[in-house]
């Protein structure tokens, strides 16, 4: 029986920069089935510290190799950073809906799309950029500061035009990536925004998309217990009531989210 839960061999697990890490493991099954925007629920170790799995976006999936990027921020991600090549990693996935990009990628490659990443939010957008590379997306990458900027080169290697923003102005546009987005949308011609990043950024993008009458697909992050739709723990408020981020998301249309007045 083909199962979503596998033991995958770790190929490498290295610090990228600052407190960001890159983990690569072997899984032909996940590589074959992964859609951009889907996630993996990873058991970081075999103790009950931490008890729950950690949901991480799929950053790349090719051949038999799959990778994630994660930020070491608590005991769970700390424990994950201690895992060594050769060890087996307990992974469930691919999970969640992922971005809807096939129509754009296949039928209308000339539609102009913009990808907006904030901080660790670059992770799923690299895989998305690869799927959308024929439409040559514009990619806006935001970080607090230059030394925390991620994946610029990967986007460039995929043929995307990349623009950078940093909150402190140490590289590229000085300010929020959402302000950089406004500047670029002013040129016109865009139809779709794909974004992943911190919640305030996504809220702002939902508002901008609404004002400019564009489609937006936003990848959300929440704490999860099960990751597979069973516990109903990770719901968010949408216009059609509570929806599960793990199963109905993690990607939601900006129009669907009930962020007004919050």
């Amino acid at each position: 029986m083909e199962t979503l839960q596998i033991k995958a061999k770790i190929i490498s697990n290295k610090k990228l920069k600052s407190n960001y890490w890159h983990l690569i493991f072997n899984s032909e099954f996940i590589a074959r089935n992964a859609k951009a925007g889907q996630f993996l629920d990873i058991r970081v170790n075999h103790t009950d510290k931490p008890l729950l799995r950690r949901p991480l976006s799929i950053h790349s999936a090719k051949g038999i190799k799959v990778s994630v990027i994660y930020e070491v921020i608590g005991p769970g991600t700390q424990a994950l950073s201690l895992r060594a090549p050769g060890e087996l990693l307990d992974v469930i996935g691919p999970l969640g809906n992922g971005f809807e990009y096939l129509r754009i990628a296949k039928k209308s490659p000339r539609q102009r799309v913009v990808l907006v990443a904030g901080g660790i939010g670059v992770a799923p957008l690299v895989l998305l950029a690869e799927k959308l590379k024929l439409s040559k997306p514009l990619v806006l990458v935001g970080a607090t500061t230059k030394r925390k900027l991620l994946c610029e080169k990967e986007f460039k290697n995929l043929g995307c035009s990349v623009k950078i923003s940093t909150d402190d102005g140490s590289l590229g546009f000085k300010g929020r990536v959402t302000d950089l987005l406004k500047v670029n949308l002013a040129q016109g011609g865009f139809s779709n925004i794909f974004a992943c990043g911190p919640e305030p950024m996504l809220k702002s993008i939902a508002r901008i998309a609404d004002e400019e009458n564009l489609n937006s697909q936003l990848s959300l992050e929440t704490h999860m217990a099960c990751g597979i739709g069973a516990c109903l723990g990770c719901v968010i408020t949408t216009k059609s009531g509570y929806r599960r981020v793990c199963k109905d998301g993690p990607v939601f249309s900006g129009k669907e989210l009930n962020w007004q007045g919050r």
Partner: protein
Amino acid sequence: MARQIKTDLTVDIGNLILKNPVMVASGTFGYAEEFKGFFDLKKIGAIVTKTITIKPRQGNLPPRTCETPAGMLNSIGLENPGIDKFIKDKLPFLKGLGVPVIVSIAAEDDPGEFSILVRELDKINLVSAIELNISCPNMQKNKLISQDAKETFALVSTVRRLTKKCLITKLSPNVTFISEIALAAQNAGSDAIALINTLTGMRIDVRKRSPKIGSWVGGLSGPAIRPIAVRMVWEVYNKINIPIIGMGGIMDTESALEFFIAGATAISIGTANFINPKVSLEVVSGLKQYMSDNNILNLSEIIGRLKACKD
């Protein structure tokens, strides 16, 4: 040479015969659909559904879960589609599984809702047993039915008259004397006692000085509560003579065995399903192995067989 003996894992819970004593706990297994991609569901003893109410419930304000040391808090608030949609949309999948289905039910405002639900479920052949969830801590109630022996007795007696199906009463650990409540349920005609539901708990974000979950308090589950659950099973086992379905932080075969030795006839796996979706199947095989290794033919040889400490 080790001899492979034929182990008997079947257990009786009232008029319900389970092929093995490993069940999955209400609220941690959805309506089973979410787990179909992980293992062959018919291999476990029984499935207890997410609790249903008469009307649909949207559940509590998020965030609804947070992690705690060796555990987690949840306050889902019994989000469910209501009994009509449950029967229409969820039962058909459960029908095809070939595993006993135990439907968990709760009342929102009036205990009389239990009677309506029991009457409805009594008509459905597929429903093997009914679990009375009188112990959900996330309903913003001052007092739960299972926190009062008289109310527990009154409720169980009322619904007992309405069905011959196996009735399981699920109790809350948030009480002073658990065996008093268990005894009340037994005397009112419950076929079995399920314990424990979650312990009420709270976590505070010290930077924001706000609770970590939307409804302020939630139910604590996971290995953190296991010693309390084992103690309560043992205490209740010594006072009643109907079967106990033990649960609370079971993560593997060894922790499941603690409950049998303390007096449980069957066990339920809850939070562990979130961490390892096929844990219940692993516990079924683990129990077989343990019995075979220790020349145990029938589980009854270990249920409640707790020995005093020796030095």
